[in-house]
């Protein structure tokens, strides 16, 4: 009897924690939708801001966000996946180098983004004279998400059964052929999950971006142009008291953008797996 009673209490406790988490999440999203939906219309999405964001839309910040995220991913994905493949497929196992790299990646993943921002500001913006630009911001974000991409790719590659490799080599395949035809496709879902997480972080980042890409409201065309991302715009709208309604509208669109990225990534995972 006592055991059954205990079991019931524990079940209820777990159920409660699940309920609280769901309620918090639903509460936040609901609140943002309620407060922000009134700001959203076609003009808000398609027009550039005017009067510091009091009027007009947020089109340039949407473009800036996507541009910056893409640049960061274009730099970080090949580097991160490449490093993971080197460590797991080419480099000797259990070396000091591999251990140090793993430790470095884990430490880097825990550093606050403002610290990356400060580094990017001093190194890219000032020392390399890149100025506030998509390039400075993209490089900074790339460094910030690199540990996540490397670690998740590494885990995904490790999870590919060892027998695939020996069977492939026994058929005469080279390492690169095996990686290209067998290991990367098998590891793709895990790698893409890491990319989604990283893209989400990049889209939502404000501090590091403000310091390295600036807060210009113009449309970023060249990679050397400064840009304001949606997250930075949201920050400025709120902190300078420009418009809370528009801040919430921007927040809502950031969430929508992240949902779209998740959806696209899931879709591409399914496509890869089906092959």
């Amino acid at each position: 009897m006592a055991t059954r009673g205990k079991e019931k209490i524990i079940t209820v406790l777990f159920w409660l924690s699940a309920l609280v988490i769901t309620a918090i999440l639903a509460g936040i999203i609901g609140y943002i939708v309620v407060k922000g939906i009134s700001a959203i219309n076609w003009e808000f999405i398609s027009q550039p801001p005017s009067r510091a964001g009091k009027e007009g839309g947020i089109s340039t910040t949407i473009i800036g966000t996507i541009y910056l995220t893409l640049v960061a991913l274009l730099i970080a994905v090949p580097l991160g996946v490449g490093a993971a493949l080197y460590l797991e497929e080419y480099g000797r196992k259990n070396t000091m180098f591999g251990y140090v790299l793993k430790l470095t990646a884990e430490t880097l993943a825990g550093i606050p983004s403002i610290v990356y921002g400060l580094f990017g500001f001093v190194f890219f913006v000032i020392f390399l004279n890149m100025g506030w630009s998509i390039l400075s911001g993209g490089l900074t974000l790339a460094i910030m998400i690199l540990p996540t991409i490397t670690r998740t790719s590494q885990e995904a590659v490790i999870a590919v059964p060892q027998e695939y490799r020996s069977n492939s080599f026994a058929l005469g395949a080279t390492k690169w052929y095996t990686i290209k035809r067998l290991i990367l496709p098998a590891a793709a879902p895990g790698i893409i999950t890491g990319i989604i997480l990283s893209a989400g972080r990049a889209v939502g980042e404000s501090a590091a971006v403000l310091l390295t890409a600036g807060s210009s409201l113009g449309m970023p065309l060249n990679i050397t142009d400064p840009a304001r991302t949606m997250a930075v715009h949201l920050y400025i709208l709120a902190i300078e008291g420009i418009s809370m309604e528009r801040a919430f509208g921007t927040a809502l669109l950031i969430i929508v953008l992240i949902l779209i990225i998740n959806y696209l990534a899931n879709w591409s995972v399914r496509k890869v797996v089906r092959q």
Partner: protein
Amino acid sequence: MKTKLECKEVKVFYKDFQALHGIDMDIFENRVTALIGPSGCGKSTFLRTINRLNELIEGTRTEGEIYLDEKNIYSNEIDVVALRKKVGMVFQKPSVFPMSIYENIAYGPKIHGIKNKGKLDSIVEKSLVAANLWQEVKDRIHKPAAGLSGGQQQRLVIARVLAVEPEVILMDEPASALDPISTSKLEELIGELKKQYTIVIVTHNMQQAARVSDFTGFFLNGFLIEYSKTNDLFVNPHDKKTEDYITGRFG
């Protein structure tokens, strides 16, 4: 009877441990040679010297010579890719790749540069027919190979090996993960394959060695204790250790 493989003083070391102590063995063309012995006796290690697969394990060193059609596969001029095209291998656990049946079979030929669709189609069919699998899968060769049963997967793996047109097929306990019916289908297949290929099979199962092989080698602690015609070895073993092993006194 032509000698296909001539092994001379083959020694393998894993770091400080010597796994094989100078194996001399002639393996004959179009015959099935079984390697038996207790776990850890070196039979699988020896098998993997023939396609140089031991090299994938860090800290492994091989000494001695193995002549495949009178060419030393351990000489510097040998291209490992070309060697492994000639010497195929079937592993203990059937490992189908996460792709369709068709793509599994075409994987090997594509490595070796065959891209023509018509040619690949005919290789896939021919290999599946040769592995006695065509009838069972011909309507779903574009479906994922993971949907096949264990016995079918093992025959698929054999078809995948046949698709690169090897001359020698190494089998490392190919039936150990199979049920009795699948096992007997596999043994039947081995009997058919030896008409065209030279087969070396490692097995734990002495009845299996007796059923499928023409020659049998008994390994113990890294030494080849006895090697002769299968019938002779089982009926009239010369070495006391062989006799003890095959009568079940140890192992």
